Structure formats: C-alpha cells, structure tokens
C-alpha cells in the first residue's frame, strides 16, 4: 500500500494529524478552568470539603496529605483519636451553601468536649481493602481508641489499592501487620512490589534510565504546560468515556448495580481483618451501614442488599463490635442531586452524597454512639 503512494501523501497526514492532535490537547486543557480530578469526578453540584479545626486539618484523603492531619494532631493534642474511614460521602456536600460543613467537622467538635480527637480519612469509592491498609498505616502513628467504619454496598464492588495509597506498602510495620491475614497477603502480593504513588516511570525502577527519564520529564514539563497537565487530561478523558458509556447503555444512578461475588468476598475478608486487627490493638469499633436515599427505588438488587445488611450485622456480632444501621437516617429533604453522569447533561438524583442537613444528622448520630462507647470505656 505504502509503496504505491508518494512520500508527500504519506507525510501530510502525519504532519496535519500531529498539528490537529496538538491543538485538540490545547483546547481540552482549558486554561481558565483549574483541572481538579476530584471535582471532575463529582461534578459541579457536589462540593468536596476536607475540614480543618482552628486551621489544623482534621480530614485528609490519602498518604499524600496524611502527614498534615497527623502532624497537626501531634502538635496540638494528646487526646485519644477516633479514626473515621470512609468514601466520598464524608467529604462531599450536595448543593453546598456558605457555612455548610461536613459531618467530620461537626463530629470533631462534638468529640472534643469528650477529650477525643476525631480524624477522618476518605477517598472516592474507597473499598474495605483500602481501609484495611490505611488503618494499619495510621494506627501505628496515632493513639487510636475508636475506629468508625462505614460499610457501603456500592463499595463492596471495589477492589485493589489506588496509587495514592501504594506508598504504604513500603512501611515494614504495615507489611508485617498485613501478613497476618489471607487478604493482607493477597494485597501484598498484588501491590507489594509496586512503586510509590503516581509513579509514571515505574517500569524504569532501579535502572540507569530512571534518572535520565526523570530529568527529561521535568525539563519537558517546565516548558510545555500540556506535558505537566497530562494526569488531569487523562482523568478528563476517562470521565468522558465513563459518560459516553452511561449514555450509550442508558446507565444512570438508579440503574441496578449487582454484587460482584469475588470482590464482595475479598471486601468481607478485609472487613474481618480490620476488626481482628482493631481488637488486637484494643481499639473499639463502631460499624455502620451508610445512609441511603429512600424516596426512590434503591439501585441495588434488593435480595443481595438485604443479605449484605444481615451479613454485616452478623460480622459485627461475631467480633462483638458496635453496629448501627443508618440507611434511613437521612430524610428525603436532605438528599440532593448531582451533575449528569451521561452526555445528556440532565441533573441526576444522588444516592451517595447528601446536603449539609444530612451531614448534621450523621454527625449527631455518630456523636451519640461514640459518647456511649466513651462512657463504657471509662467504666472499664
């Protein structure tokens, strides 16, 4: 084919295509809009808020910012820590207004009067395997007295460890802790040799090329903004593909999400591993099923969802930890809408994130239970 064509006709598509490709990247990398992957994933209707108390971060995301929360605690407090792990429900507020705050902020204030320091970690779609790894990492650094652990049916479909948590696997203490459980061993096997967070040159690890590649990348980033913004461009591309898929297959937040047996099993194993580890460390646990929107049909297979609730309650009983089912805690009025997850642009009901009123209710319910736990602790 190529032999029958002139060099120019072979060259032109490459040159024009490269120019158009470059221009399209400039167009996508809109300069006026700050690229924020978190915002991109949640949409305009849902705001993220990682709370601070007196200027000290008390709500962090992963190990990239964990030091802020941990250092803040070490500087200003010696109270026992209540560690709250969760997903984006903890840091997202729908239709946020000035003065609105998340449950983590309210709970921190509430527990302060009981000489406890509430610290929250949450990541979008965080699964129990990630909670397990993060719990082991943080529990070594802070005097945790209570672990608050939400269990989300949606997140039982998640598996693996996100790149921003991979650095934890280089902590030998965590490695030793994970080796105790089967799921921990599996996590170590699948992630133990991966390089630290967000390493774009992982394939060059421990080679001479690692240095030259790092140098060239930095140089290119310094005089070509597109190169520096590529992670955000990748994120934007994946969000577009996600919306395209939803549009093509008519998927929306109300579409039924089925349980995935393999992941469900692994996450249950992770839950049991967390509880075993917490009990060994003499840490009290409050396990709860997260609030769920109840004015419309839940997006789950009801048989599977009911079995899930029973299972979590049974696990809590087996380990003798406190269990609460908060699925009906937040009334309809406190739930909101979110930006479209398809290409048509209509707003959609949000099953996961609520408005500020929902955060108040959740914080209040948790505060009450944590006070009970504290009273019981003091009696011991």
């Amino acid at each position: 084919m190529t032999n029958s064509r002139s060099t120019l006709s072979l060259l032109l598509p490459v040159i024009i295509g490269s120019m158009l490709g470059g221009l399209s990247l400039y167009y996508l990398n809109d300069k006026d809009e700050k690229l924020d992957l978190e915002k991109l994933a949640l949409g305009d209707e849902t705001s993220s808020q990682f709370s601070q108390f007196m200027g000290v971060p008390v709500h962090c995301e992963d190990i990239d910012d964990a030091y802020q929360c941990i250092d803040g605690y070490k500087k200003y407090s010696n109270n026992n820590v209540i560690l709250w792990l969760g997903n984006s429900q903890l840091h997202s507020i729908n239709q946020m207004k000035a003065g609105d705050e998340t449950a983590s902020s309210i709970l921190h204030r509430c527990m302060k009067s009981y000489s406890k320091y509430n610290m929250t970690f949450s990541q979008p779609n965080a699964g129990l395997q990630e909670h397990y790894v993060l719990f082991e990492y943080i529990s070594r650094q802070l005097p945790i007295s209570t672990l608050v652990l939400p269990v989300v049916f949606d997140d039982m479909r998640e598996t693996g460890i996100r790149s921003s948590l991979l650095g934890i696997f280089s902590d030998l203490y965590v490695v030793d802790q994970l080796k105790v459980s089967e799921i921990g061993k599996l996590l170590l096997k699948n992630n133990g040799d991966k390089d630290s967070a967000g390493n774009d040159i992982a394939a060059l690890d421990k080679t001479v090329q690692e240095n030259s590649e790092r140098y060239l990348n930095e140089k290119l980033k310094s005089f070509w903004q597109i190169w520096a913004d590529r992670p955000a461009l990748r994120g934007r591309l994946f969000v577009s593909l996600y919306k395209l898929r939803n549009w093509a297959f008519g998927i929306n937040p109300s579409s039924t999400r089925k349980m995935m047996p393999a992941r469900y099993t692994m996450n249950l194993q992770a839950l049991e591993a967390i509880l075993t580890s917490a009990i060994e460390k003499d840490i009290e646990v409050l396990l709860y099923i997260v609030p769920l929107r109840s004015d419309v049909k839940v997006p789950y297979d009801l048989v599977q969802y009911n079995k899930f609730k029973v299972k979590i309650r049974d696990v809590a009983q087996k380990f003798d930890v406190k269990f609460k089912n908060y699925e009906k805690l937040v009334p309809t009025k406190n739930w909101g809408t979110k930006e479209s997850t398809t290409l048509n642009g209509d707003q959609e009901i949000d099953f996961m994130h609520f408005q500020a009123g929902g955060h108040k209710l959740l914080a209040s319910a948790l505060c009450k239970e944590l006070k009970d736990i504290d009273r019981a602790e003091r009696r011991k």
Partner: protein
Amino acid sequence: MIFNSLTYLTLLFTVVILYWVLPYRSRLILILTASLTFYGFWRVEFLPVMLISVVADYFVALKMPQASHRLKKKLLLTSLIVNLGLLFYFKYLIFFAENAIGLSNLMGVEIDPLALNIILPLGISFYTFQTISYTVDVYRGLIKPEKDFVLFACYVTFFPQLVAGPVLRSIEVIHQFAKRPPFLWSDIVIGIRRILYGLFLKVVLADNIAPIVDTGYSMPLDAMSALDVWTLAFLFGFQIYFDFSAYSHIALGSARLMGIKFPENFNFPYLATSPKDFWRRWHISLSSWIRDYLYLPLSGIKVQRVRSTGGLSDATLKRKNIVLLSTWAIMGLWHGANWVFILWGLYHAIVIIVYRLLLPLINSFSNNIKMIGGIFFTLPIMMLSWIPFRSESLDMAISMWAKVFNPYLYDSLGMRENAYLVTAVILVGVVAVYWIKHQLIPSLDPKGYLLVLGEVATFTIMFSLVIVFFRPINQFIYFQF
C-alpha cells in the same frame, strides 16, 4: 532502555541525525555505540554477557569454512555451549535446581532450597537465538561468515531489535548494513508512522488494558466464573498482542529511520483461520526460527530439501508428533523458566495435532465456510492458551481452564462491567481495523482525498492520545523473556 520513554526518543533522534551525516564506517561505530548505550541504560553490568555471545560466535563462525567436518562440529558445539550455557545459567538454573530439589525431597532425600538470586539479562533469549542461527547457518554452508567484527556486532546488538526481537537472521540484515543504504525521505516517513502506531498500541491500548487484567487475575479463584475466565483470556490476549506488536512496530520503525528493513513480526494473528495459520501471523520471526533450527532438524528433515519440496513426508506421523510436542515444550520454556510456559507450549502442540487429524474433514467444506468457521474456532482456542501464559502456577492455570468446561459456572460475572465491555469493544475494533486495512483502503483511490482525510483523522487521534498516555509505566511483556 524502554521504547516508550523520552530517553529512547532522544537517543533515537540523535542517532538518526548522526547516522545520515556520518561517513559509512563511522555509521557502524555509531550503531554499535548506540546499541551498547541502549543496553547499558538498563544494567551496564550485563553488557559483557552479551559481548561474550557476540565475540564467541564471531570467531567460531570465522574458523568454520577452513575447518574439517569434525572440527566444524566441534566449533558448532562450542557456540551452542556458550550461548545455551549463558541462557541456562541466567534463565533456567534456578528452575531446574528447584525442580531437582523438589524431586529429591519427594523421593525422601532432603535437600535445603538454594538461595540463588540470578537476574535475567534483558533480551538474552533473543540475542542468543540470533547468534545461534548465524553460526548454524554458517555451519550448514547457507551463508559465509562475516569478517568485519563491527558489522557482525551491529547485526547482533542493533538496538531497535535487541531486547525483544524480531529474531533476525544474518541473511536478512548484515547485507543491509554492508551496502550503506541511501537516504530516502520515504524511509523516514514510514519509520515515523510505524513508531507512532507502536506507541499508540503500547501506551494507549496495552498499558490501559493491563490494570484490568491484573485486577482480574488477582481475584480469588473460587469467585471466578467461566465467563470471567473467558474474558480474562481474551483481555490478556489483546494486551500481549498490542504490547508485543507495539514493540515490533517501534523496532521496525526505528530501523527504517536508518534505512534498514526488518521482516514483519505480526499479521492480524487473531484473524487466523487455523492454529497453523496463527503461527504464520504471530511472532513470525520466532516461529520460523523454531521451525528451521529446532523442529526440522529434530524431524530429520534437511532445511534445503524442505524449502524445495515444502513437505515433511519422510517423517513418520508418530515421530512428527513427538517432535512437535518436544519443540513446543522448548518453545514454551524459551518464554520462561516455569511449568506454566511448558503447559502453554504443549497446549499449542496438542491443538496442532488435533487440527492435523481434523484436516480431511475441514477440507471437505467450502473455502468460505473454512475461512469464517476457521476464525470462529481458532480465536477462542488461541485465546485460551493465554490462561497458563498469564497464570502464576500450574494449579491456577488448570483451575481456570476447568471452569471453562463447567456449564454451571456460566451464571455470574465477577468483574466490573467495564472489563466485559472493553473486551467486546476491542474485539470489534480488531475486526474493524482488519476490514479497513484489507477491504476499505485498497478500494480507495491512493491519490484521493478520502484516504488522506481518513489518515489525518487517525493520526490526530493517535498523536493526541500518545501524548496524553506516553509514560514508561509498564515494561514490555516480552522483556521478561
């Protein structure tokens, strides 16, 4: 050095400019220096290992023409001992030692496990096969030994093909280095196009399929359904195809920038109409190497004769099958020192034997049915072969295969919906690209605007995606072999 890196592109750009500027002799020195630099950027301490193979085969081959038949045999043996010895030490010693210890322990003789830590030099399976083929060809009298050491060293170490092929024959390359290729703009353009194709396949497709495959394979086996196994087989099949064919595209493109033409290594293998056809389309250079230097000699067929008659009629069926099984077991072992690769090889041998048995029946159908039915049956059979290839143990591979044949395990899906969707989209994409390349494009006017517009659109998408995803986040899969 890894192809999908800024370091490689910088090296390639510099070498290509200098190559066309420098006089002939200096070009060869440049290629050799660049090749050693390319290799040294991985681990400089393994350069001497590669050079041992180069020097040994250069001198062994040089001695052969004047040597007696007996001495020639000894020289050939020397080459085989050096090359296979290096390969054995670095690639197979631990495997054989562990298996020997395991066997001894089974027989009641307790031996402690060895604490060996041997790093596998990058590309050793490729360059040793290349030097062996050279010496064997000289021994067979098919080629004359190369007297110019630098030229010979360039053939073995030429950086575009050094670590993952294609496995080149000296007859295909040395004469191209020797005759000083003229500068042609068409070579440069074709080279750039091939490199872009390759980068697209690697950084956009293979590297984005990899996490889905990794996640799938990390699932507990008990929770995996038959549909999950099929999906993983197809997904990994696509991943390794894109990954390896990407390497070949970049290798061919890089060499072409210097006016050197390599033979093609892939030709839409997943649209093969039979298992035999698959191996004419997948890793073509290795398949033909194995045929010429292992299968035919073991079958007792002389290469020249086969080339002239194209048949294997002298070999008995039984012997043919035994040789086929052994050849494929070795082919499997070439890929890695693990039983899963041997199982992979044996699977292919059995598939070919069954195919041969069914050939009279297959030939009774019309050509259209043979073609469509051939693709329909060959594709899943070939994809299933990737199960042991990707598995960590024999147990895992066999358990996964067993699920495929259990009709009760077709009732659930264990992975994210995206995994099945991506598999389906890629399958349709591969067929569509084949149709575009073999049906649509030949029907268009080569000087017409439609072809150019189509290519502009293709390169716009490819270029922007390559920029966004370009990063050496994953090694090429074949680097481990």
